């Protein structure tokens, strides 16, 4: 099959920071030596190992610094999904003698959901706590789901799709008050580097993060594990990462993660302000220019860069393609745009109408976006919506097709 030869658009505007972000130039620069002269293994006793070993140590401090944790409590992984798998499976298997019940929410990432499904095959049981129309979980509902044999609670810090922030500190406080032996995990993959995150304030035992969400490289993430928290390794077979995660360390990526963490910590306030400002302008502008559109997620308790829209009468994949041909990269929760051809379970959980869910567009801004990007988006998105609505047999026929 021939592929498209359409010339590249004059300017690419990236508004899909939920998928991944461009590594900072200083991140890449810091990685390069570890791809070249400092190629040694940190486990080697000789001199070739010492540069990489010190680099790991430094990165561990940098990552700890970003989330208020001692370096010794940071375990490097290949990314956020592995960190979530290690947290959920690792804690469940380490504490299974205490019980086999896990509490989590309807809106967690697949890496938590599928880990839990796997554990169910090993005899574990799960309770999925519901969320409200903003995607928020009620901390009391989490407590109500606890049982005598509950060993693990996993509640994300920010949702991957609508950006809603969960009251994790409150969840942890109540769960620990109920039974302090229960391990509390938070998937903070979407929050770390985007908003201030502090493990002490949160009061969690385990916290997952990934570098490529905050301008670090792909291939490196971390799991914070508080003092005394045991984990059965997911990847067995070596002394690396204190026995919690075997495998020759991906030194270049971990170095990149460290630098990205340090930059995020240093620039946090400015980043939040900038990204939220751009997002708010875009949100206001689009709501002014497009009618019959809804914003998904919590109005205020939401990640600064997130804008998830359900646009009546059109379908997301086509919207995404037209925008991309105009140079604007966004994502969509529509079934057609997903590799699995499945609609978004998050939009379903928060009660978005099924047809509206097919018309969802996820715009996620980052620190590399500019005012000019917002101007362009405010011009292009309404045009594309109008064009597709003109083709739509259902737009304007809400009573027929929408609940």
């Amino acid at each position: 099959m021939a592929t498209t030869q359409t010339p590249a658009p004059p300017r690419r505007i990236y508004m899909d920071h939920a998928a991944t972000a461009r590594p900072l130039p200083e991140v890449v620069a810091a990685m390069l030596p570890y791809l070249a002269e400092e190629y040694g293994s940190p486990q080697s006793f000789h001199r070739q190992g010492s540069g990489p070993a010190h680099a790991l140590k430094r990165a561990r401090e940098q990552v700890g610094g970003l989330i208020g944790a001692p370096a010794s409590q940071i375990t490097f992984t290949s990314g956020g999904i592995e960190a979530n798998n290690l947290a959920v499976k690792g804690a469940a298997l380490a504490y299974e003698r205490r019980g086999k019940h896990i509490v989590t929410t309807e809106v967690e990432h697949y890496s938590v959901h599928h880990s839990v499904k796997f554990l169910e095959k090993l005899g574990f049981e799960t309770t999925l706590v519901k969320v409200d129309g903003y995607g928020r979980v009620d901390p009391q509902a989490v407590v109500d789901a606890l049982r005598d044999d509950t060993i693990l609670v996993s509640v994300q810090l920010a949702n991957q799709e609508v950006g809603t922030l969960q009251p994790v500190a409150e969840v942890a406080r109540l769960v620990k008050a109920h039974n302090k032996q229960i391990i509390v995990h938070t998937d903070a993959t979407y929050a770390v580097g985007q908003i201030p995150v502090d493990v002490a304030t949160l009061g969690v035992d385990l916290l997952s993060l990934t570098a490529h969400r905050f301008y670090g490289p792909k291939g490196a993430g971390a799991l914070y594990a508080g003092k005394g928290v045991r984990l059965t390794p997911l990847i067995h077979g070596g002394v690396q990462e204190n026995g919690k995660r075997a495998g020759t360390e991906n030194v270049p990526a971990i170095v990149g993660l460290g630098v990205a963490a340090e930059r995020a910590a240093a620039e946090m306030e400015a980043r939040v302000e900038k990204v939220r400002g751009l997002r708010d302008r875009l949100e206001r502008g689009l709501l002014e220019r497009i009618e019959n559109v809804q914003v998904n997620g919590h109005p205020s308790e939401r990640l600064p860069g997130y804008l998830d829209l359900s646009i009546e009468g059109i379908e997301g994949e086509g919207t995404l393609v037209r925008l991309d041909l105009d140079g604007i990269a966004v994502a969509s929760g529509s079934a057609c745009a997903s590799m699995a051809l499945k609609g978004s379970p998050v939009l379903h959980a928060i009660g978005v109408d099924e047809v509206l869910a097919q018309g969802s567009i996820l715009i996620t801004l980052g620190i590399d976006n500019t005012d000019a990007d917002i101007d362009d988006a405010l011009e292009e998105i309404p045009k594309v919506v109008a064009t597709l609505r003109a083709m739509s047999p259902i737009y304007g026929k809400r009573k027929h097709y929408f609940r």
Partner: protein
Amino acid sequence: MQHTDYSAKVIDHFMNPRNMGELAGANAVGTVGSPACGDMMDIYLKVEGDQIVDASFKTFGCTAAIANSSMMTEMVKGMSLQDAENLKNRDIEAALDGLPPHKIHCSTLAADALHEAIKSYKERQGATQGKVAAS
């Protein structure tokens, strides 16, 4: 997949859809799909005697759904009803220089909408001409 996996023809028909909109004087309509599943097509035909003299569409759906609708309406204009009934989704797909594997169902949808329109047209013809439609 990325949209760059679509052929140039798919992108062309998506960006510049042919025969888009309701058809004035249409005497056959076919509707398939479900918005909740992400695609729905209305196909309008104007049939004169044994021939489709005009065709149009309105589609809610992805790039491939719209491109298949557009291509299909182009293909059937001037076609005999019988040829149109024999038009297969593979024919539309081929005319578009192929579809990514995930998107084959969109060509099926377009073919189904066409066949649906013809069937309803024939049923109505049978009814108005006082004949009972053969099952």
